C-alpha cells in the first residue's frame, strides 16, 4: 500500500478539533497545547562517469526553521517541503560549482511505507520558490538557503530504493525552560538507500549546461512522526529565541 507521508500540516489533537491551527487555538484557549506532525528526509549523492557531474540532493518534509537574510530578521518556522541540491563538475579545463535551496510543492516528493521515495523537481515550476533563508537545525547551520552558480531551469528526478533493514526508533522527550515545558513522543524509521538520478541544468559560469544519469553509492531515507504537549510560554527560550 502506498502511503503518502509527506503532506500534512501542524494540527492540534487531544481536546482540539483536528486541523485547527495553533494560531486559532492559542488565541482562545489557555495552555496546555497539543501539537503533532510527521515528516521525512531523503539524501542521495553520486557521480556520473559519463559527464563528470557530481550531484547530491536532500529533501526534507516537516518543520523547518529558516534564518532570514535581514540582519535583524526573525527566524521563520514553517511546515514545508525543502530541497537542497549541490552540483559540481571538474575537468582539466573547467571547474564549475552551483547549489540551490528551494521550497517545493508537496506533490514533487512522495515517500512510501517501505521507505522507497521519488522526487520530481523542476525549478521553473511556478509553485517553486527559493528558500526564505538558511535552514537551521537544533545545532545551528544546516545548509545554505541561497541559489548560487546555477542558471536556467534545474531538473532533478530521483528514485530511492531501500537497501538495508529498517531501523525503528521511539523517543520520549521532555524539554524544559521554566515556566515553559514540552513533553514529546517521536518515532522514526530509517534505511540506507540507492538513489537513481536523472538531472539537468546549467552552471552560471562558463561551464554551461550539465546533465547526469546515474545511480548513487550513498543514500538514505527517513520517515518520522512527532507529538508534543506544551505548557507555559517560551519567553526567551531557544533555540533562536
Amino acid at each position, binding site marked *: 500500500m502506498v502511503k503518502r507521508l509527506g503532506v500534512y500540516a501542524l494540527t492540534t489533537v487531544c481536546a482540539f478539533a483536528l486541523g485547527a491551527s495553533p*494560531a486559532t487555538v*492559542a488565541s482562545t484557549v489557555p495552555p496546555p*497545547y497539543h501539537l*503533532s506532525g510527521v515528516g521525512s*528526509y531523503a*539524501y542521495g549523492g*553520486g557521480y556520473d562517469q559519463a559527464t563528470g557531474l557530481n550531484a547530491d540532493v536532500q529533501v526534507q518534509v516537516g*518543520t*523547518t*526553521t529558516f*534564518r532570514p*537574510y535581514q*540582519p535583524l530578521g526573525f*527566524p521563520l*518556522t514553517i*511546515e514545508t517541503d*525543502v530541497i537542497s541540491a549541490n552540483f*559540481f563538475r571538474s575537468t582539466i579545463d573547467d571547474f564549475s*560549482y552551483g547549489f540551490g535551496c528551494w521550497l517545493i510543492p508537496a506533490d514533487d516528493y512522495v515517500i512510501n511505507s517501505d521507505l522507497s521515495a521519488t522526487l520530481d523537481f523542476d525549478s521553473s515550476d511556478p509553485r517553486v520558490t527559493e528558500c526564505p533563508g*538558511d535552514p*537551521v537545525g*537544533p*545545532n*545551528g*547551520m*544546516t*545548509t*545554505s538557503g*541561497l541559489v548560487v552558480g546555477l542558471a536556467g531551469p534545474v531538473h532533478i528526478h530521483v528514485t530511492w530504493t531501500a537497501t538495508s*533493514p*529498517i*531501523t*525503528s*526508533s*521511539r*523517543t*520520549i*522527550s521532555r*524539554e*524544559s*525552560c521554566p515556566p515553559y515545558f*514540552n513533553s*514529546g513522543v517521536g*518515532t*522514526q524509521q*530509517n*534505511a*540506507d538507500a540507492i538513489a537513481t538520478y536523472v538531472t539537468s541544468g546549467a552552471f552560471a559560469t562558463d561551464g554551461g549546461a550539465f546533465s547526469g544519469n546515474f545511480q548513487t553509492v*550513498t543514500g538514505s531515507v*527517513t520517515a518520522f512522526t*512527532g507529538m*508534543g504537549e*506544551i505548557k507555559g*510560554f517560551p*519567553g526567551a*527560550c*531557544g*533555540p*533562536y*529565541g
Partner: protein
Amino acid sequence: MSKGRRWMLIAAGAAAVGLVTAGVAAASFATGLTPGNSKFSAENIYASFIDAQGNQISIQASSGRQSFRPRGGGSLITEDTSTVQVFSFVASTGLVGGGCWTVPSSPFTIRANDMSATIAFDSSAPGIAECPGDPVNAGEAVPSSLQRRAFSEGLNGRIAFTATWTPIGSTVQFRSTTNTSCGTFGAVIEAVTMSQNSSVATTISSLTVEGVDPDSGQTIDVSLAGTYTTDFALVTQGSFDQTVNGPSSGSCGPFGSDVP
C-alpha cells in the same frame, strides 16, 4: 493574548515538534547497531552574521563524537574529534567561500556555569586538516535533517578569527530516551542536551573569498575581515548513554548492516 506572544508560542511549538521529529534519535549508530555500552558527549557552538551590505558569515564548531559522509561514497566515518566550519557569501558579487576543518584539540571552551563560550581558530595552525567528508549533524544517529556540504573552496589563504558567545535568556534542557530496534538488535539511548541562545561578537583577522566576478569575468578576491556581532547564535552541550543488545556478531542498521 498578544499577537507577539501568540507567534512566539506558535514558533516554539513548531520548533518543539520539529525537535521531536527531526532530531528524534540522538545517538551514534553511524556504523550500525553493535552490542555494548558507551557513553559520550558532544558540544557545539554556532553563530550567523549578516552585515549591512548583506554579506553573510556563518561559524560553527563542534567537539565530541561526530560522523562524516565520505565524498565518493562508503560507510560513514565516526570519530571523536573537533571540527570548525565556516561559510561566507559576498552579496555584491554572489561569490561564496567555505570550508570544514578537523582540529587536533578543541578550539573552543564552554563555561559550565552559564554556557558562555569562546573560540580562537587559525586554519594554518599545525595539525589542522580538511574534514574527511561532509559532517552529519553532531549528536544525531541518522541524518534526519538537512546536512551542510563541507565543500572547501572559494577561499584564498588562511581563515583566522576569535569570537565570544554571551548567553541570552534561559537555558533549555532537553532529556530523551530512545528505544531502537533493527532485526534482532535493540538499543536504548539516554540523552541530555542543554541549549543556550547567545549573542556573539567576532573579530575576523583573515577571510578572503575568491571567485569569478560575474560582471567582469575576472577572478577577484574579497576580504571579509572585520568585526561582526549577532544575536542569532547557539551554544549546545549533550551527553549520551547508549546500550545495545543483540547477537555477538554482525550489526544492523543504517550505514553498516551485516545481519548474521
